[in-house]
């Protein structure tokens, strides 16, 4: 439990690490989606390729757009890109950095899906079993009356009866799967080499100082937006509280201002009474309360709490005969 809390805290400490965490979660979701998806090859010559390539391409597109949506930096980048210049000059390098970071993170889950499908091989078998030359393998069932194309199209379907007692289907499947895994591993190797080369060569082409600046300001924009949202939330809370108290106090029928008393004249009972009276805001009759609740519905107060926020404070001072201040209270 503690470890989980530590991990969560670490991820939440930095906006970049939050994005990394979400990116990894999406990649795991992609793997889980593949394993739970029931791949169902139609085993018909005209539909095999269409179905397989569809399953290999459409989910990555969906995962890419999901990755873009879920990333916080998308909103930050769009806002920074679209805002009017105003008092703050715009730095296109920051927008470019945010865009490239967002695209890189969004591309992870689609790549994971494509790699998993290639390494698993089912989709390749479904798509390309028709293109295999059956002469390479022995045991082609030729007593069914179907032509060769239709037989090859049925290879991905294990339960089909024409392949019973024959190792032809397994041989073709293994052959196509071998190709599929080779393609998968090559793509993975290519991506890793590309990433490594990019990391190694980047310092030669990039000005490190400028890149530090860009990273700083892009992080700053994210933090600024979060703080602005939090401040708005807190402000709305204060605003609402003052508005409600002002509404209650407007219902007072009397305008008696209760002065705070000097300490030596107080006892605990009086304090209790004062405190409770203060909380009543002058609304102390059933009719008043009913009127208050009715008015709250029919005529909500205007959104203006300047009276409450800038109320002049009373200041009572006790002075002795020479004019020296004995006691003062606000």
């Amino acid at each position: 439990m503690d470890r989980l809390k530590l991990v969560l805290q670490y991820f939440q400490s930095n906006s970049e690490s939050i994005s990394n965490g979400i990116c990894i979660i999406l990649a795991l979701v992609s793997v889980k989606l593949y394993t739970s998806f029931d791949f169902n090859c139609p085993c018909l010559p005209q539909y095999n390729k269409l179905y397989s390539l569809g399953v290999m391409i459409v989910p990555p597109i969906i995962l890419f757009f999901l990755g873009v949506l879920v990333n916080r930096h998308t909103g930050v980048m769009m806002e920074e890109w679209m805002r009017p210049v105003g008092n703050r000059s715009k730095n296109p390098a920051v927008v470019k950095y945010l865009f490239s970071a967002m695209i890189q993170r969004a591309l992870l889950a689609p790549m994971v899906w494509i790699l998993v499908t290639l390494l698993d091989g089912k989709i390749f078998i479904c798509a390309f079993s028709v293109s295999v030359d059956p002469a390479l393998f022995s045991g082609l069932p030729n007593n069914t009356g179907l032509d060769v194309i239709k037989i090859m199209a049925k290879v991905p379907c294990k339960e089909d009866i024409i392949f019973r007692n024959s190792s032809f289907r397994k041989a073709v499947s293994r052959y196509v799967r071998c190709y599929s895994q080779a393609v998968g591993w090559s793509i993975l190797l290519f991506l890793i080499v590309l990433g490594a080369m990019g990391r190694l060569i980047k310092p030669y082409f990039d000005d490190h100082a400028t890149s530090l600046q860009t990273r700083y300001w892009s992080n700053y924009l994210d933090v600024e937006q979060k703080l602005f949202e939090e401040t708005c939330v807190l402000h709305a809370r204060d605003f609402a509280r003052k508005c409600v108290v002002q509404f209650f106090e407007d219902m007072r029928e009397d305008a008696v201002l209760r002065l705070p008393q000097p300490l030596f004249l107080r006892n605990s009972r009086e304090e209790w009474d004062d405190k409770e009276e203060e909380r009543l805001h002058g609304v102390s009759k059933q009719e008043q309360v009913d009127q208050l609740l009715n008015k709250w519905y029919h005529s909500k107060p205007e959104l203006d709490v300047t009276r409450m926020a800038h109320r002049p404070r009373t200041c009572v001072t006790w002075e002795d005969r020479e004019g020296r201040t004995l006691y003062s209270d606000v």
Partner: protein
Amino acid sequence: MDKFRMMFQFLQANQESFMNGICGIMALASAQMYSVFEFSCPCMPEYNYIYGIGLLIIPPIWFFLLGFVLNNNVSVLAEEWKRPIGKRHKDPTILRYMFSSIAQRSLIAPAVWVSVSLMDGKSFFCAFSINLDIEKFGNYSVMNGLTETDKLKLLARIPCEKLFEHQEIRDAASRYIKCISQACGWMFLLMITLTAFLIRAIRPCFSQAAFLKTKYWSHYIDVERKMFDEACKDHAKSFAKVCIHQYFENISGEMQTLHHHRTTGKDDSDDGEDDKRSDEEKLMGIRAQDDMNKVLWNWHTCKPPLALRKEQMEGENNGKLNGNAKGAANGLVNGHTHEVAKKEWAVYYNWRTEGAREG
């Protein structure tokens, strides 16, 4: 248990994240309900389509309405929509924003049901088995020499494993229709994702300032409602405390006159035993079983009116300021109210101008 508590605390920290949590729970419930539900195709030409498509459409509608029911913001939206204008103008963009955010959250569970159902393929298989062309799957002579209605009946029986003997035709047909169903499912998911992308990612291009404004004020309405409820609760608590306090005082006064009890003076002892004094004060002069019974009986048969006496407290304060000892309450007539005269008697200092004003 700890995990649940932590998750619960995290979700409750923020109203929005709480709503997101409910939304996620409903999506999981939707997927779970689908897996638990036992799909049984009727296998008759007249009812297959209705059953298959009905099961694809009606549970999503139910989940959508359930999402509205479970969302707290629906009542806030309804209140804001129906309230009279009064002193505060109504902004239709705020209503639209609140409605769209509620609708977006409610649409997730139905979307999960529809996509899981399409990926599974049973609904489509049941609904469209009668439209199949069996010749596509191979050279089968099952349908030779049958009338039209018999052909339809045969095709309608395909989804039911026990009613249709030709297993290979059934497998081929099931694979074919399932493939189409899954293609529809993926297209549906793609469409939803593209729509969400257009709404969320492209929106800052248009009216970002107006969006910030509507977001602030819709959140404000929610917070204001909560603050008002809290203020009412606090007020009711104080009201009740003072009312009961005055009732006890009232009864205590009666007890004193009836039984000629000597009440301990409320502040005549100058020793520093605060605890003993506060206990005595709490008793408020009621110390006998009969007295307490009378108090309780009166509380039920003759509750005090909902009008707190102000002039008694004013009178006491006046006495205090003039240095009088606290004696018996004055102007007290068994809990009936006096008309509170409107008067301003306070000396009012304005700290800014340092001037005194008496009213």
